[in-house]
């Protein structure tokens, strides 16, 4: 009998041990807490590309410029002022002397030069934004060529790049073309400075080329930043905790003493935590509960237009990946498909989060002064006529199927609805190919698809963040659509210093996309936040960007609605 008890007893002892081994002491609730639906991928500002990564980057670092928390207009950050040349190509930034790193070092022009140079030598997803700087792209290519074959290729000279440290507090940047939104870029994490000294212990030097790479672990708690907060804790896939930085130059305007990002991947858990008052802000309302909350007219649910759209990417090259002729290469077929289904039932019955049906690639109201004419809407009669003109007689588009990512049920239902409508309205039978998302991504890269759902969210407040995607040489141009006139319009716009003339050129280019439809607009993205009325400092700008520096909870505010926190 006793021996039988040994097993449960041993289990219990092990259990106690394991609990002690894995547990961690609970901390006081932070002044402001919010849910992130996934953990940060990287806090290396040179490598990041995800929203939640950027959100924390704005806390830990600061660029030459920063964003106003409510208007998202660029405002001086580390730079207190900037001289711009008449041709808008030379920017001389004057760094404020009171800006310091969290280790006490002053923030100097060298820190920017270091981070920006690293961006070209160990490129990341947003390196292409540095190509506006004179000599940056040729330097990157020459340097990468040198890394591949150091014996026979000369090491390029960094002096050829238009980034010049005049003195500790003066940084001169020369661009190859005028960039009207350059201050916005200066506030964007790929242009943030880095403290080289503190990264030195993580450096690894290649003995042959002298190329330096850094172990990603330099971004763990204790990472040296120059922003409003310092990171005090990062438990992988659990939480990131920030504390107000005592050395930040503008600390008087940092509203919360501590901020915690809680990682909750499960939609139900995200919502329950908010309802229980454990978190103050849900930046992504789960699609399972969103429609319910809309029906309840919850006042703490904030729905607002986003900074991009969903669309059907159509392969537009003359030949399909397998060499067959591509029926979608005929513009009329794509136009017929665009007119062949009604978007209204999709946003009303499938996506159900207050999305607006789209007829254009760029949402019409996100760039003030930028005119977006309506594109194709539901018109089955005209669509059928176009198909006949294009010589499509049967009920098939030979070789064409619809690629759908299996990870999203909403997306699969959307596609089902579109395909059913095409069948009913145009008599076309299009097969659906359900596929895992990484494979779908790969096939889009390889242009090994015909029709697929895709989306695009802009990065900076200029239409070129959308139009550049469909340049014929852009890596992000999955459609294979090539149009010389489009490219030339973008080139002209890039050289144009006059903002109004520039917009006119981009409007024309954008119109070409909406007419030739290499991408068929579906609906405009919406953002959904849940936060109670006592939360201050969260803007409802389409860009879905929050400067946590100015966010806080006003505990004096009497709550009338939403949750019981």
């Amino acid at each position: 009998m006793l021996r039988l008890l040994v097993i449960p007893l041993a289990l219990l002892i092990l259990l106690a041990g394991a609990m002690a081994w894995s547990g961690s002491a609970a901390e006081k609730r932070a002044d402001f807490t919010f849910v992130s639906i996934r953990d940060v991928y990287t806090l290396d500002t040179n490598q990041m590309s995800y929203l939640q990564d950027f959100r924390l980057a704005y806390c830990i670092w600061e660029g030459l410029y920063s964003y106003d928390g409510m208007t998202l207009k660029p405002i001086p950050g580390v730079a207190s002022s900037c001289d711009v040349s008449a041709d808008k190509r030379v920017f001389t930034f004057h760094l404020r002397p009171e800006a310091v790193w969290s280790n006490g070092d002053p923030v100097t022009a060298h820190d920017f030069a270091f981070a920006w140079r690293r961006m070209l030598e160990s490129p990341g997803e947003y390196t292409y934004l540095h190509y506006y700087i004179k000599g940056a792209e040729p330097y990157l290519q020459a340097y990468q060529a040198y890394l591949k074959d150091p014996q026979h290729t000369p090491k390029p000279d960094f002096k050829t790049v238009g980034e010049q440290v005049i003195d500790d507090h003066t940084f001169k940047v020369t661009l190859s073309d005028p960039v009207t939104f350059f201050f916005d870029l200066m506030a964007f994490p790929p242009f943030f400075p880095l403290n080289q000294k503190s990264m030195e212990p993580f450096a690894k030097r290649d003995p042959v080329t002298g190329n330096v790479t850094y172990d990603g672990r330099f971004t763990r708690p204790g990472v040296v930043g120059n922003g409003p907060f310092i990171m005090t804790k990062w438990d992988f896939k659990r939480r990131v905790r920030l504390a107000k930085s005592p050395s930040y130059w503008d600390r008087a305007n940092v509203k919360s003493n501590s901020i915690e990002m809680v990682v909750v991947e499960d939609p139900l858990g995200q919502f329950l935590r908010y309802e229980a008052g454990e978190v103050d802000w849900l930046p992504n309302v789960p699609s399972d509960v969103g429609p319910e909350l809309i029906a309840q007219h919850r006042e703490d649910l904030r729905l607002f237009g986003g900074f991009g759209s969903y669309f059907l990417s159509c392969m537009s090259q003359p030949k399909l990946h397998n060499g067959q002729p591509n029926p979608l290469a005929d513009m009329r077929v794509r136009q017929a498909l665009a007119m062949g289904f009604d978007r209204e039932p999709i946003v009303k019955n499938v996506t159900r989060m207050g999305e607006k049906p789209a007829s254009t690639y760029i949402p019409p109201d996100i760039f003030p002064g930028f005119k977006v004419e309506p594109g194709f809407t539901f018109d089955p009669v005209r669509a059928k006529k176009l198909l006949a003109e294009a010589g499509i007689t049967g009920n098939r588009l030979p070789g064409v199927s619809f690629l759908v990512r299996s990870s999203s049920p909403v997306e699969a239902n959307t596609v089902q609805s579109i395909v059913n409508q095409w069948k009913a309205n145009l008599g076309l039978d299009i097969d659906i190919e359900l596929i895992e998302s990484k494979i779908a991504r790969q096939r889009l890269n390889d242009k090994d698809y015909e029709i697929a759902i895709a989306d695009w969210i802009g990065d900076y407040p200029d239409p070129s963040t959308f139009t550049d995607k469909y340049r014929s040489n852009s890596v992000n141009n999955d459609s294979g659509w090539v149009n010389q006139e489009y490219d030339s319009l973008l080139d002209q716009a890039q050289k144009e210093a006059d903002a109004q003339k520039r917009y006119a050129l981009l409007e024309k280019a954008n119109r070409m996309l909406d007419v030739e439809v290499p991408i068929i607009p579906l609906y405009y993205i919406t953002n959904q936040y849940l936060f109670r009325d006592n939360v201050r400092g969260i803007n409802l700008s389409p860009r879905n960007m929050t400067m946590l520096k100015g966010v806080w909870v006003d505990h004096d505010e009497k709550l009338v609605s939403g949750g019981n926190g």
Partner: protein
Amino acid sequence: MARFLAWRLAQFPLILAIIYLITFFFVWVAPGSPFGQGERQLNKDAREALEQKFHARSAAQFLEYYPKEVIFHGDFGPSMQYAEWSVNDILKSALPISVALGLFALTIGTLLGVLIGTLAAVYRGGLFDWTSLSIVLIGISIPSFVTAALLLSIFAGALHWFPIGGWGSIRDMILPGIALSLAPMAYIARLTRVSMIDVISSDFVRTARAKGLSRSIVIWKHCLRNAFLPVLSYLGPAAAGTLTGSFVVEKVFSIPGLGQHFVNSIQNRDRTLILGTVMVYSLFLLTFNLLVDIGYALVDPRVDVTAKG
């Protein structure tokens, strides 16, 4: 016994090496790349820089670097998706959590499972047998994402008896522990019941009763020991599975355990992390199967572990 142990342990490295290579093969031929995220494509230079950094230009480069590191330094390398974290970091932070939760679930599951199974066998055909059998059947049939979500909504969401997910205290462990224990409990109850019925009707039980031993002593001491053997062999793989975490339960209760990494690492094509999790799971499975064999010998002295076959 010592020779048996030594022999079995000596097989471990070979088995693990074979598992590593087979896993690597599947990981490498799977389409899709660990680099590049979301809708934005990495340009060629950035992709190549990353491939170089992670020793992933070619299968040969990968195999030249990583296995050596695993063997000599026990280092699985950096995660290809979460560059700030090495696979070892991830395993170190996630494994203890899954082990703690798994042990808790396994303890409840085994104790209650054996108890229910035994009582059901003793009162065979009675009310208790029928109800427990139905409950057990439901326990096996309902997928854990349903039970977990129900437990969370009712006991944490509506009644506020427990915290809504997270990890850090004993209270955090109870709901996910229950959710996780249901399946093994159900299996164990069924296994115990079946073998108990077998044992109860055997000759030695009748002899023991005839000798005047009380019913409870016979059942709990003589019968259970024999009836426990099939449960024990189930416990080996069950322990390896439970202790390395459950994707569903961890996700619903937002527990930062190892289970999520099995699924996510594959979705992300995080090659180094896939290999790390597979190796941990394999090691657990091998170890627990070994422990089960030893346990056999302890429970039933007739079992000779050194015997061939």
